[in-house]
């Protein structure tokens, strides 16, 4: 038998705490960062730099303050974009009964899947040399096939339920059916996927920056910082640890918040008095 669980007001607390720091820094950091000071030697500690100097001798703390916005914005928009395309594709795939339509939508995506995303970015970036927006598009593009497949697989079961038949019977619009019901049923899984995908996207952006795409390789961007300062990990750990911790906190916090929001609360009864769980008695 299940135990009763009291509604936990603190359910969101951990997630909120984790997310608040990085988000505040990301949003307000650029406002308080101030002017750059003189450069120090790369990867040095102290010297007026609270968190030391980074790989080109800039103040790490200042870079951290500056580096949240791009991370949050690029990664968020790329993920959102990926889902904005993947969702209709995957849901159409799940809801259609036309094999050719499903194949038409999904099989070309499989072709993209077969090319390692980094290679794809590398190649496409080298050919078109996109900017920040282009990069977000590119990263989104790389994520679409993947997300679409997950949407399709998750939605398939819900799409075949009698509830959908009933909606069809009512002449319900495709969107209501797909998003309102099927998507709603798959929400938890999709949220889980989107939550982790966001982190993947973050580092894909950083790697792309390293390959010379989109963000400048010395940009103030947490993920780029982690990547570029890693050579100094043992001499000047802060340049890696600070941004990495912020990213970890952001990812963890965001996902825990999502979890909390989707917790199937109230599935269990709330007792006034001790819950009359059936007393189990051994046969005499």
């Amino acid at each position, binding site marked *: 038998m299940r135990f009763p669980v009291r509604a936990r007001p603190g359910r969101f607390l951990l997630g909120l705490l984790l997310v608040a720091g990085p988000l505040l820094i990301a949003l307000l950091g650029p406002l308080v960062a101030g002017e*750059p000071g003189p*450069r*120090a*030697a*790369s*990867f040095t500690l102290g010297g007026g730099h609270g968190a030391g100097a980074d*790989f*080109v*001798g800039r103040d790490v703390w200042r870079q951290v303050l500056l580096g949240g916005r791009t991370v949050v914005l690029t990664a968020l928009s790329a993920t959102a974009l990926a889902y904005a395309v993947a969702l209709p594709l995957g849901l159409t795939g799940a809801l259609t009964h036309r094999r050719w339509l499903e194949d038409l939508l999904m099989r070309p995506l499989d072709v993209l899947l077969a090319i390692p995303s980094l290679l794809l970015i590398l190649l496409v970036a*080298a050919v078109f040399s996109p900017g920040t927006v282009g990069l977000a598009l590119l990263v989104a593009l790389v994520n679409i096939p993947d997300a679409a497949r997950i949407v399709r697989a998750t939605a398939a079961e819900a799409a075949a339920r009698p509830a959908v038949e009933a909606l069809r019977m009512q002449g319900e619009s495709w969107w209501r059916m797909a998003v309102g019901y099927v998507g709603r049923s798959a929400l938890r899984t999709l949220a889980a996927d989107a939550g982790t995908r966001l982190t993947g996207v973050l580092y894909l952006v950083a790697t792309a920056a*390293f*390959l*010379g795409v989109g963000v*400048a*390789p*010395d940009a103030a961007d947490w993920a780029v910082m982690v990547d570029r300062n890693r*050579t*100094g990990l*043992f*001499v*000047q750990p802060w340049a890696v640890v600070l941004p990495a911790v912020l990213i970890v906190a952001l990812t963890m916090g965001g996902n825990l918040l999502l979890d909390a929001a989707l917790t199937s609360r109230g599935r269990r009864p709330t007792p006034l008095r001790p819950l009359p769980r059936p007393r189990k008695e051994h046969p005499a």
Partner: protein
Amino acid sequence: GGPGGAAGGGTPRRGGTLRAVFAGGGASETLDPHRTNLFADAARAKALFDKLADYGNDLSAQPRLAASWEPNDGLDRWRVKLRKATFHDGRPVTADAVLYSYRRIADPKEGFRAKASLEPIDLKASRALDSRTVEFVLKRPTAEFPNVLAAFGAYIVPEGAHDFDRKPVGSGPFRFVSFRPGRSTVVERNDAYWDGPPHLDRLEFIVANEESARVNSLLGGQVEYAHELTPTTARAHEGKGQIEIVRLRNSAMQAFAMKTDRAPFDDKRVREAFFLIADRKELVAGALSGAGEIGNDLFGKGYENYADDLPQRVQDPDKARHLLKKAGAENLRVTLDTSDVAAGFTEAAAIFRDQAAEAGVRVTVRTGSKDTYWADTLDSGTLASYRSGAMPIESHFSQRLLTDSTTNATHWHHKDFDALYQQAQSTKDDTARAAVYGRMQRRLYAEGGFLVWGFADWILGTAQNVRGVAHGAPANTLDWARFDKVWLA
């Protein structure tokens, strides 16, 4: 010359296997010494093969397989006597082998790297005078012909050799044992080596492109020698007693190359302004993590014929501003091409961008593909990150600064400069020639296209028990990666 200062003293001990890990290479690497391209290739080639000459620590040519060389008075005919040496299969190293090797390198159907260096030689006319004497006929007087013999990749292979995958035969200090492309190459001591057999029994080259992998395998005792470490790693481990850090000074020139025939750098005042923009100390500290020396806009610090009498340039933004104003280039915007092709490039570009801002110049850093970077810098753009490994100053001139140089990245086309170069090549007297080089360098110092801001150390790590590693030899010189002199304590 022998190893320039072995780490630790004591008498060499014979025996043992040394594992050396290098960057570069991959599944495509070959043991064909003429295809040598990367440091890893060069180190392997050096273990298996010999050149006629090689560079000393100051980049002067030192005889190797050549016992001696003698030019004629016109400096266009050189008689090279070979020393008595044998290939690993027992065949002697002959004049014919030398000619075969050079002709192979010069084969127009192949694109061997040393072909450009051998260009002065008229190989059709050159011939073997006897089995151990070659007479090289040159297309023009070349006083520095020994530099040609020491050129990167100009290895001597047995006559007829063309397949180096299976069992390459050379005359080098080690014999071939096994080769797995992209993984490891094993060689063993050649007891018959003409320069005295190596101390080591065996030597294994391992490829690891990731620097941290190289350091970790060294720290973990999986290799005894790790090539190409970063300054940061060096700082982390220097003097900690775990591993030995070896810094090979003056190994790589770090520069920005300005196209002297394109606006805005076609105005020498702009070039000078840029010379004055650079805060070299900050660049070395920031981009090289302090592992290097500042440069003075000239190639070859510490090398033979280097003009070290010129005053060190220091940053002077005001003067730079002034010069730019005079040149009508206020509010200048330039694009700086860089790429992750060499350590410190992107870092230096970012730092220089900020320094330029102080003088009112807006520099935009553009990061290009590292695979094609060098070819791109040759023709495109106006300002680019640049680097060069060690080579004699004369070679630097001939390869990069003459009108017909093949890799003239600064587009430095000056007939009078070419003439000076020819004059030096026709000057037999060393001091007189040095004076000509001095004039050439002064010219470059004043208005050249290379903003040479530093010279990076080449950093190696070795295990504590490795002895005999040269400390003073810039990368690519004779004593660099010279494992026949290395021994394990």
